[in-house]
């Protein structure tokens, strides 16, 4: 098994403008997702939702600035760390990850244990 990060990129306005119902539905969808990962033979090792980019602080060298690293329409809003057999398996799992206002990116986690 190998580790992959599922990075969730979405338009923040989707949640900001949607009120509590939208948030509750999202939480329920992520709850279902956790169950589906197990059914698919994968494993969630960790993950969380992030506060919106309006709360982000970027640090580059000595410079500390307000805001995210890059202003984009779809921002990183949450992530999972999962275990999967191979990329196809990771994609199969990531397809199920809720991201109604954007999409997800799958990235293999680098194995630095041996070096």
């Amino acid at each position, binding site marked *: 098994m190998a580790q992959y990060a599922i990075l969730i990129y979405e338009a923040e306005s989707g949640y900001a403008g949607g009120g509590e119902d939208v948030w509750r539905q999202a939480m329920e969808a992520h709850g279902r997702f956790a169950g589906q990962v197990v059914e698919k033979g994968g494993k969630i090792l960790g993950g969380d939702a992030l506060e919106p980019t309006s709360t982000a602080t970027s640090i580059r060298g000595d410079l500390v600035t307000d805001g995210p690293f890059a202003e984009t329409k779809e921002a990183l809003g949450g992530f999972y760390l999962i275990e999967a*057999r*191979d*990329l196809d398996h*990771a*994609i199969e799992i990531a397809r199920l990850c809720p991201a109604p206002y954007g999409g997800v990116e799958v990235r*293999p986690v*680098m*194995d630095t244990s*041996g070096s």
Partner: protein
Amino acid sequence: MVARPGNEAAAPEPVGDEARRAVAEAHRREWAFVLAATARVTRDLDAAEECVQDAYVAALGAWARQGVPRNPGAWLTTAARHRALDGLRRDRTLRTKLPMLVVPEAAPDAAATMSDDGGLIPDDRLRLIFTCCHPALALEAQVALTLRLVCGLTTAEIAQAFVVPEATMAARVTRAKKKIAAARISYRVPEAAELPDRLDGVLTAIHLLFTTGHTDPRGSGLVRADLVDRAIALARMLRELMPDEPEVSGLLGLLLITDARRATRTDDEGNLLLLEQQDRSRWDRAAIAAGCDLVTAALRRPPGKFALQAAIAAVHAEAPCYERTDWPQILVLYDRLLRIWPSPVVALNRVVATAMVCGPQRALDDLAGLEQDGRLDEYRYLPATKADLLRRLGRRAQARAAYQAALDLAENAAERAFLARRITEMSGTGNDDA
């Protein structure tokens, strides 16, 4: 006596012509088989390529000395795998740190070849093809990787084929190989549930290779025969490996029927000839017959997009002339194709059939919708099709402007010359635009 593969260096004595021919032939026929079987051992595509390359060099000498073996592919594979195992023993400590190709052990492969030393060599060509054409790789990288690993072309040859600098192509191939290892793209044939999607990706890559060769996007001649031949060889290989997949038959049929017109697509001076101008008596009838048989096989089940495109090509190929083509049938086929593949390019081709069935004005109305759609803004065949419809309606000034728009987008020399001729024809007197 059969030559035994080993680790001999390149031949010290003069290499026989027969051996040289046999090695060249084996390069063309067996590269994919040998590399695919070796990659399973090395679990590293670069190392596999090196071992296979070495095996071909060794074959030059060994076959000249001992004669060409009964099964050159098996000989080469055994030689390449010996090298791979030696390499693995030598580099064990080094290799464990690098990401390896993931080779899941599925059910024993149905097809296997007996090697000269009695072992069985699995036919891993499908694994290799599906790995090269994995959807997580960019389409252009899929095509480059397929040419490199399945066809055995050098990076320089691939770069030349796609008219990009060799360094660019080398970077593209290296990046794709790195991703296969680091992201763990498995070396396997997709399972039944994912097969239709994944197979479509493979067929699309081969089709892209063919169309690049069929009308060289930037070249001076119209056709790049080497690319067309490679694409057809790949489609043949796939058909041999997956004889029961209708879409594979559809693709091979489409390529054979389309390429059967190769000799008639330009005149002696290299000028482009349209379908309606081509000398149908010079179409390759044997290729068309083979293609039509494949189409029949492909249409047995609800047809996919390649089967339908092949069926359309077959209707054209069997028509005695352009006017007496079964255009209503072609229109029906385009409608079915659009239902499963709503692509603006398909819709544009349908416009041509509409013109033949319902007249150019109706076709022009359909085309207006495609112009508004915007997705074909850079596609030279949109203004070219529009120009032809306007020409047939006698609206010469508008036709001229549309031909000019097509010329501005066209880069192939033969196409440009054709469009320039049409502009001249439309520039004479007799403008009867409404």
